[in-house]
């Protein structure tokens, strides 16, 4: 689950990380009132789950309350990479002397968190990683010992950060404690600002929460925004499907993440593009398959459906029954190509015998057929 900047900052503050004063506004009037209260230069920032807000014009300085009103008016309702801005963070502007980067990622290679620190702050760290990797200092944190202040100071020195070393290290430790405390899969402060007065402050922050760990953070559920997720993804979640909306036109249903990913690849290989990733999971019954078909057909982008099942724990005949139910109810309005193999394959083929459902022996043949039909 992705958090907004203001939510990430709220969490960081709880773990002792200094953040600039700021509050959320849903209307220009609210923004004006907050700016009026601060009585100083403010920064108005769009709160959307996407990077590059500044470049898109979603971050503006305001010298007084009236300007805060105008800026908020311009930013609210703005479209940033397909997402509508519904709220802005009105924060006290900080006097920036230096901008650094400090982030934590779940690093598969070291099987723990890696702390990344760079003097190149306030810019896209992925770009720094690609163009100037030496500018990033990395440290693998021991998951049992955690990040200790002496290690953080050492990293700061290695990275060449200038400023109050103890305060900088405290911020890194605070970031790590927050990440562990909320089960973050990503946590970053960018920029980590050294102010003209020598203070160390998290001017912007980003936190993603590990979905697998949400069960132990019920307090974070209030941060979830169903409206910022794709409506079909929300519906799929309710059914227990693993579903990702994609930008093609072939609806893809399969069992097992690897098989579904491979099905997307095959669709692309034969000249099509998948409209979604949908994994029905292991051991799915007819009803689950029926619901999956129904869900995929709700997507107006879908011009054809590929069902690719390798029966292991999932029985192919259950899949066939689910598809037949959709057929009987007359909801199967788009071309469908299906391939079933594995457990109960023969029973499935017997059930589908003589029915107007196109069966193919391999996933490549099924994908080829549906891509062709969808193009008609």
């Amino acid at each position, binding site marked *: 689950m992705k958090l907004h900047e203001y939510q990430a900052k709220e969490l960081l503050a709880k773990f002792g990380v200094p953040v600039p004063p700021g509050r959320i506004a849903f209307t220009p009037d609210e923004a004006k009132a907050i700016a009026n209260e601060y009585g100083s230069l403010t920064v108005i920032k769009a709160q959307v789950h996407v990077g590059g807000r500044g470049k898109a014009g979603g971050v503006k300085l305001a010298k007084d309350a009236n300007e805060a009103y105008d800026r908020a008016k311009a930013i609210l309702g703005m479209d940033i990479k397909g997402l509508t801005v519904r709220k802005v963070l009105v924060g006290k502007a900080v006097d920036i002397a230096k901008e650094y980067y400090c982030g934590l*990622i779940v690093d598969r290679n070291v099987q*723990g968190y890696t702390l990344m620190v760079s003097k190149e702050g306030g810019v896209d760290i992925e770009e720094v990683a*690609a163009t100037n990797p030496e500018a990033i200092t990395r440290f693998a944190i021991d998951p049992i010992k955690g990040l200790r202040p002496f290690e953080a100071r050492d990293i700061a020195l290695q990275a060449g950060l200038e400023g109050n070393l103890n305060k900088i290290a405290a911020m890194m430790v605070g970031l790590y404690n927050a990440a562990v405390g909320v089960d973050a*899969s990503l946590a970053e402060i960018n920029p980590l600002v050294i102010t003209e007065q020598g203070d160390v402050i998290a001017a912007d922050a980003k936190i993603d929460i590990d979905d697998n760990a949400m069960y132990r953070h019920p307090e974070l559920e209030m941060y979830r925004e169903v409206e910022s997720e794709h409506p079909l993804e929300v519906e799929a979640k309710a059914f227990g499907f693993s579903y*990702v909306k994609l930008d093609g036109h072939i609806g893809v249903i*399969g069992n097992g993440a690897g098989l579904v990913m491979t099905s997307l*690849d095959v669709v692309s290989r034969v000249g099509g593009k998948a409209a979604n*990733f949908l994994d029905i999971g292991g051991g799915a019954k007819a009803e689950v398959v029926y619901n999956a078909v129904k869900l995929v057909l709700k997507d107006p982008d879908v011009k054809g459906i590929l069902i690719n099942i390798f029966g292991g724990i999932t029985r192919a005949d259950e899949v066939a029954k689910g598809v037949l139910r959709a057929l009987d109810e007359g909801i199967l309005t788009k071309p469908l190509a299906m391939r079933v193999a594995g457990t109960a394959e023969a029973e499935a083929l017997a059930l589908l015998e003589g029915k107007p459902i196109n069966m193919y022996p391999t996933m490549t043949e099924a994908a080829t057929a549906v891509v062709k039909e969808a193009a008609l």
Partner: protein
Amino acid sequence: MSILVNKNTKVLVQGITGREGAYHAEKMLEYGTQVVAGATPGKGGQTFSALGHTIPVYSSAAQAKAAHPEISASIIFVPPAAAADATLEAAHAGIGLIINIAEGMPTIDMMRVVRELKEMPNVRLIGGNCPGLITPGECKLGIMPASTFKAGRVGMISRSGTLTYEASKMLADANIGTSTVVGIGGDPIIGTTFIDLLPMFNDDPDTDAVVMIGEIGGADEEMAAAWIAQHMKKPVIAFISGRTAPKGKRMGHAGALIMGNVGTAESKLEAMAAANVPVADTMDEIVTLTKKALGL
């Protein structure tokens, strides 16, 4: 005839009294796996009966191991929130091979487990979020459908469950059997990866070639390619799934995620090419390339 498990492997099933545990314990017994004990906290003294076997249940892995010192492997069927603890329980009971099936474990839990196991070199963890492993005809230590596997001389390592079944079935249909098939799991942090298993297959006299099924996310395939280039004496055939997956979207598996420029299919394909490992573009090609590697 295999790596990690064979017909003599004696198995503990943690969570045997639960629905999943009971179901798969029976399936494993049906396959001929020597399930000798079960463990569920607080259920010590009960028995588990299936297919004419009566298996004692203990309240802890340690109690089970004390009563059956011959236990060499444990398979864990507990909910994801309890899976890290159950894994450490098995490790501290002195069980050398632990299979963790659980899907949905918090990543931090796995970080800590893997870190602790680094200090226990005699313990190998497979998973989480994996189907387990099988030495066809001898021992099934997992949830895979038995019928798709045929005994033979090709090793397999895979991050995906269903693709493992599919590839094994395709090979079996082409009359190519497998020595041991290991599903290593789809999570970002797992106990065992390609680079841990390739040396075992390299040294196994009953394995002639290895099929590795990778996917987007992380750099395990790249590290494996580097190892293969340096050390592997046997042919390896690779398959990479998720070539068309978009950046930043989690594709079913928590580990199948391209973050920034790390974990792309291109990087994995390049690494394989650099190591002279043939990559199958489609699942069918796995069979063609394996046949070619074996000179069939």
